[in-house]
């Protein structure tokens, strides 16, 4: 599968010209280029009495094809962060750069176009269109993303076959189990071949078997070159990422590559010692 990258829409004219921020700390020369970057990103909610500082100066980056997970306790600001990075929630301060273009000041309409073309979203609750079949949910996403009818259909068939859902293509979402609906939601998010997949607790509502299925799907799409930013409480999901960021109280307190740890020759026994 070749990944075609379409140039982003132009920046709003009103914004002064700016240079892209410096590359991430410790740049390695042959690393892939930056895809997403936030600089000093903040979010303050001012509903009611005291302002709530949900996100307090976050610098993060996702390289092209990279899989990054964001973990942290509930209330640490991880969902708010993801929503800002996808333009679903305006930032209170700081910058967001997507493909070396500044996007944090875009209007809602411009963000909508950007998402349609470049960003896929998967949420905890599948948000499928209940009045459309499974097939149409996926196919329409490809069409809106700019694919021709023929290409959209082919893409839909490819994705549903990949997910083992071909037999359910004409079913309504409500006829599917939660796990199946979430797999359809992932297919829909990938239908337009986004450069970035943003996902918020995609396994939060699933049992162990369906969690495995959705994780397998994410891992496979990452292996195909898909960049993913995953917000999750699920350590198993986070451990699949190239890098895990830990958010605490609206700030990044850790950001490190996931390196397989040695099981010291004793496999599962290095964690669980069977006695007797």
């Amino acid at each position, binding site marked *: 599968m070749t990944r075609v990258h379409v140039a982003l829409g132009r920046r709003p004219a009103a914004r002064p010209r700016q240079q892209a921020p410096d590359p991430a700390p410790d740049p390695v020369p042959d690393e892939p280029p930056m895809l997403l970057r936030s600089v000093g990103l903040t979010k303050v909610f001012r509903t009611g009495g005291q302002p709530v500082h949900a996100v307090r100066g976050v610098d993060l980056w996702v390289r092209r094809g990279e899989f990054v997970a964001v973990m942290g306790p509930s209330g640490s600001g991880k969902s708010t962060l993801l929503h800002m990075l996808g333009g679903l929630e305006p930032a209170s301060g700081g910058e967001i750069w997507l493909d070396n273009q500044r996007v944090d000041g875009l209007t809602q309409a411009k963000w909508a176009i950007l998402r349609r073309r470049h960003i896929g979203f998967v949420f905890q609750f599948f948000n499928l269109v209940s009045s459309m079949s499974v097939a149409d949910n996926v196919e329409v996403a490809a069409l809106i993303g700019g694919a021709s009818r023929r290409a959209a259909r082919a893409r839909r068939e490819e994705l549903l076959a990949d997910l083992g859902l071909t037999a359910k293509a004409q079913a309504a979402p409500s006829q599917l189990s939660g796990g199946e609906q979430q797999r359809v939601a992932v297919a829909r998010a990938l239908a337009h071949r986004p450069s970035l997949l943003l996902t918020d607790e995609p396994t939060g509502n699933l049992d162990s078997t369906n969690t495995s299925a959705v994780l397998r799907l994410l891992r496979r799409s990452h292996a195909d070159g898909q960049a993913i930013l995953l917000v999750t409480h699920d350590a198993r999901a986070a*451990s699949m990422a190239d890098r895990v960021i830990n958010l605490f109280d609206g700030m990044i307190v850790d950001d490190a590559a996931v390196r397989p740890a040695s099981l010291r020759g004793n496999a599962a026994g290095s964690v669980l010692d069977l006695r007797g």
Partner: protein
Amino acid sequence: MRLPLLALLAKEPAHGYELKARLEQTFGDAYSSPNIGQIYLTLQRLERAGLVRGQDVVQSDRPNKRVYELTAAGQEAVATWAEEPSDEPRIRDDFFMKLALGPAAGVADPLTLINRQRRHYLGLLRSLSTLAEAAPPGNKIGRLLIEGAMLHLQADLDWLERCQEELL
């Protein structure tokens, strides 16, 4: 090591290598089986304790093998083992002691400790996922053991998060 061997012998008499092979077959790559030396040593001890009885079987083309079977006392030991809830400490944890005493001793910073431990747990989860994928689908016991180890790590990570919330 004593009770797993007794449990295997409760099914049928066997010699040392057969016991090792049966353990390997049960757990697959999910758990490393004891080496043959440990098994022989344990069998000797069990025999001295009167829980098993060994009998040498003459083989024409190779050294004699010693086949073991359970004694009545051995049967009793396995039955008692199976009937009792397992009440030994379930978790050994060195990390929490570091977190509890390290910062006050001036030898460790809590955030550094927590971050390092989280990275390690995530790395273990990653390695176990790889192991789980490689496990043959037919080996239910092996797969469940890996899943158990992963669930324990998830609990450890939740605990770490609680420590982070309370201590930082």
